[in-house]
């Protein structure tokens, strides 16, 4: 056996600790020696973070027990995201982790729904989605394993305290022999001949060498952007928001099994319910509102008492042209930023970590592995990007400059064609890799007012009355089954009550 590959992770936080947990959880100590450098002085934002169902694959892969993780991060369940005021003021729709109905007459359910709608006979599309109906009634239970059952047609994710999650992973990694070093990185040393990263130098003067450096230093990209000067692809022309304010509030009555995103005049506000408090924030464009006005707007729009002053965050949407450059891999915010509108940040970190595990290099690092890594990661970023842009492009708000600007902006060709084909006939192409399958696109299209004027002609192979009957039966079956579910609050209390929440909410046993 050769000497283990020495991997240095620069930065803690979610990205750093997920990278560490992936490497330590899957590989053996004689294969990799992982060291993580972070500084307690560099705080984390510490608000709630929303995830996607894929997170469960990550936890399973490295062997994390769900209920334990949820207890220790004050986590709650998530069935989707509610979008308020996005399509137009007063509107509300849910992007669910699950399907809308089942194929009928050889075509996707939504073609029949469109047909029924054009005949004036369809209910809200959300009524045919189990996850949406459960969300609307604040219910939660695990999906059934019997794939024919109506309550098997959804998936779930978590809301948790990202700071606690990082701490949880840290304990998990340290118990498995990972070395954590406290300290600030003062200098990145490059090998003068190869140009690779040779070492980082800490404030203490300690020099840490390694074979592979994982840059989890956040927005600034200490190694990838700093020392290696890797170019950044700027997507501000499509995603104009560049700032955020985050503020936690006390837990409120409204204990939703979903994230809420409310469109405001110059951006949107998030709301993420945790067991012990609620995470809130305002993502906005500094071109359309001042920081002071944004603070006033956010603080006036909370449903619980704030627990601290709002914390400002600045960002730029886009990604590194090459996340893996030489012997440095940028993971998390160092590799790119997409606003948390669809809770993709931890997912993109997860993709980077799992792809790295798939392509783990040996010494000397073969640049072909980097090329393949970048192809996979870029594809994921680009597809999320188009999906996010759709939320801005497809709006009918007339109340502010930001929304007018977004409605009129040019969008990438890939998205333009997708919108046109959906509007014409409800067609949604399925791609092989990358987030957001047709049900996700469907919910946002319909929710934001892109309603198909036609449908797949094969839908007509079933007579309309038979279709309407089937749709109504489904709606009733979903509604009845959802009524038999426990409330989200009860379910969380019984399954994974955290240490802090009961005290904080001042209720319960």
């Amino acid at each position: 056996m050769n000497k283990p590959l020495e991997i240095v992770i620069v930065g803690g936080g979610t990205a750093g600790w997920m990278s560490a947990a992936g490497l330590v959880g899957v590989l053996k100590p004689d294969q990799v020696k992982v060291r993580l450098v972070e500084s307690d002085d560099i705080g984390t934002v510490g608000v709630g973070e929303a995830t996607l169902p894929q997170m469960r694959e990550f936890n399973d892969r490295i062997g994390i027990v769900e209920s334990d993780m949820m207890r220790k991060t004050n986590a709650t369940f998530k069935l989707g995201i509610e979008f308020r005021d996005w399509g137009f003021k007063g509107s509300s729709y849910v992007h669910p982790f699950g399907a809308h109905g089942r194929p009928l007459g050889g075509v996707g359910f939504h073609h029949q729904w469109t047909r029924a709608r054009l005949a004036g006979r369809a209910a809200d599309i959300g009524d045919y989605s189990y996850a949406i109906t459960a969300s609307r009634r604040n219910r939660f239970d695990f999906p059934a394993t019997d794939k024919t059952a109506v309550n098997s047609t959804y998936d779930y994710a978590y809301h948790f305290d990202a700071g606690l999650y990082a701490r949880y992973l840290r304990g998990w990694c340290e118990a498995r022999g990972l070395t954590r070093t406290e300290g600030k990185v003062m200098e990145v040393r490059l090998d003068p001949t190869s140009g690779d990263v040779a070492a980082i130098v800490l404030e203490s003067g300690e020099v840490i060498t390694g074979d592979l450096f994982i840059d989890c230093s956040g927005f600034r990209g200490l190694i990838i952007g700093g020392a290696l000067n890797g170019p950044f692809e700027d997507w501000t022309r499509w995603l104009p928001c560049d700032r955020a304010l985050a503020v936690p509030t006390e837990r409120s009555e409204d204990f939703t099994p979903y994230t809420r995103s409310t469109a405001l005049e110059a951006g949107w506000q998030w709301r993420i319910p945790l067991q012990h408090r609620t995470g809130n924030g305002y993502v906005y464009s500094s071109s359309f509102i001042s920081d002071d006005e944004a603070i006033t707007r956010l603080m006036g729009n909370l449903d619980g008492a704030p627990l601290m002053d709002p914390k400002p965050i600045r960002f730029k949407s886009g990604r590194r042209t090459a996340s893996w450059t030489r012997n440095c891999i940028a993971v998390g915010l160092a590799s790119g930023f997409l606003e948390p509108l669809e809770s993709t940040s931890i997912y993109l970190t997860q993709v980077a970590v799992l792809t790295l595990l798939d392509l783990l290099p040996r010494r000397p690092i073969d640049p072909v592995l980097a090329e393949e890594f970048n192809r996979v990661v870029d594809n994921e970023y680009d597809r999320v990007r188009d999906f996010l842009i759709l939320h801005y492009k497809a709006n009918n708000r007339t109340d502010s400059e930001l929304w007018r600007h977004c409605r009129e902006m040019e969008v990438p060709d890939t998205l333009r064609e997708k919108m046109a084909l959906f509007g014409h006939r409800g067609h949604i192409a399925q791609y092989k890799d990358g987030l957001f399958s047709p049900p996700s696109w469907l919910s946002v299209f319909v929710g934001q007012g892109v309603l198909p004027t036609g449908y797949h002609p094969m839908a007509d192979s079933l007579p309309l009355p038979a279709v309407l009957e089937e749709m109504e039966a489904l709606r009733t079956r979903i509604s009845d089954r959802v009524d038999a579910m426990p409330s989200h609050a009860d379910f969380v209390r019984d399954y994974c009550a955290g240490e802090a929440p009961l005290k904080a909410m001042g209720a319960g046993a």
Partner: protein
Amino acid sequence: MSPPMRPRVEQVLVVGRDAAVWLSALALHKALARTGVKVRVVEMPSLLTPADVYSAVPSLGALHSLLGLEEAAVLEATRGLPVLGQRFANWSKSKAPFVHGYDTHRITLNDIDFLQFWVKARGEGMKVELDDFSLAVAAAKQGKSAVSRDGDRAELPLSSGYHLDARAYVDLLRRTALQAGIEGRGADVGSVQRDGDRIVSVTLTDGMTVQADLFIDASGPAAVLASGAPDAPFESWRQWFSADRILVAEAPRLKPLPAFSQIAAFPAGWVGLYPLKDRTALVAVYDSRTMSDQAVLDALPVLTGLPLTGEAAVEDFHPGARPPWTGNCIAIGPAAVSLEPLDAIQLHLIHTGLSNLIALFPAEAEALPEAEAYNRAMASHLANIRDFLITHYALNKRFDEPVWDRARDMMLPEKLQARLRVFAARGRVPLYDDESFQQQNWAQILIGHGLIPASYDPMVDTVPVEEQMGKVRGLLSRIAEEVQLMPVLDTEFGAG
């Protein structure tokens, strides 16, 4: 309340010949007849000779299921055989032949691709070939069949491709279509009436003029409708495929029947040997500047070890593709794309065109925004298939023969270069959108042609060596047992 419906596509005219015309008509009829769409056929004179064969990858079975064609009935009517793969011989002068087997899954141990264990073991001196770990290959080598004469099949992770007598297959399709109520008319196309990029009507040589909302061009390489479309140029792929001739011939049936096709390279190209129940079809694809038609014909008995019977036929061949959908006309199969039948993809190309067309069948007759999406999806499908074919040429090891030396040196499409680079580095095949061939297919031909990954996935080392060896032994004995239980092809389908 509801807005008035815009006019729908009600009349579809399918113009063409051979498998493409009848598969198109049947598939569209099956999907849309109940919605009021009427499919009519103009069948042009066949280009097939008695020697012709359709060799098909397993996806044809899925198409037949959709069309309501029973596997046993198809095999019976076409004197056809189910086969488990293709054996590639003489693509290297020094290396033994290999079989690309039709396994449906890649094999994994502890969720790690088995190939990775093989690469490691090979580096440590193991001599067992990768294809010995393929159920389909093992079964093919022992002359087995996944399906019995009656159409029964065991639940095994492999599937059958097919060899079908081409004329008998077209006859079967025609019969099935006419029985389904599709109107057909035998004629040639005299002229095409256009309005801008749309076709208004087609006038046949018998004087009849037929109008339709949508036209399907299944006429073969001549593309009688599609080639006249403005702004839809044919893109040549000659830089990757030097063969310009396809020759078909016949030989006596083999005894016992082999359960695979054989694809043997020779100085000017390759010759395929496709066993049928009552004969063996031979197809030679070659560069006529290197060997004349007559020279190839003379060489065939030597190359195949079989005497020729019946008449041979030769046709010109030009590889390439055109945008299949322009205006209200969609080209299907060889009218849209010409690729040599190297990986048994002729019928699959038709199938792919049809399944994409059904997914995007126009929602209305006048505005057809589907065309752009269809053309992009098809271009992506076709490029992936094309690259699979190119791979055989690019990795050949027939040194000091001009056709083959050029093939090794040619500039490859960029995505294929990336695939080969990543595989050579780590035994992983990057897969893109719209793939016909999966990880296990790519890995089999890449390894078969001698592209051995330089390193394996370190994840392999997380599995203890004894466990690895135990699992590998278990895999080999399971394959042996499963093959043992499969019926013998010759017993099931041999003419006695």
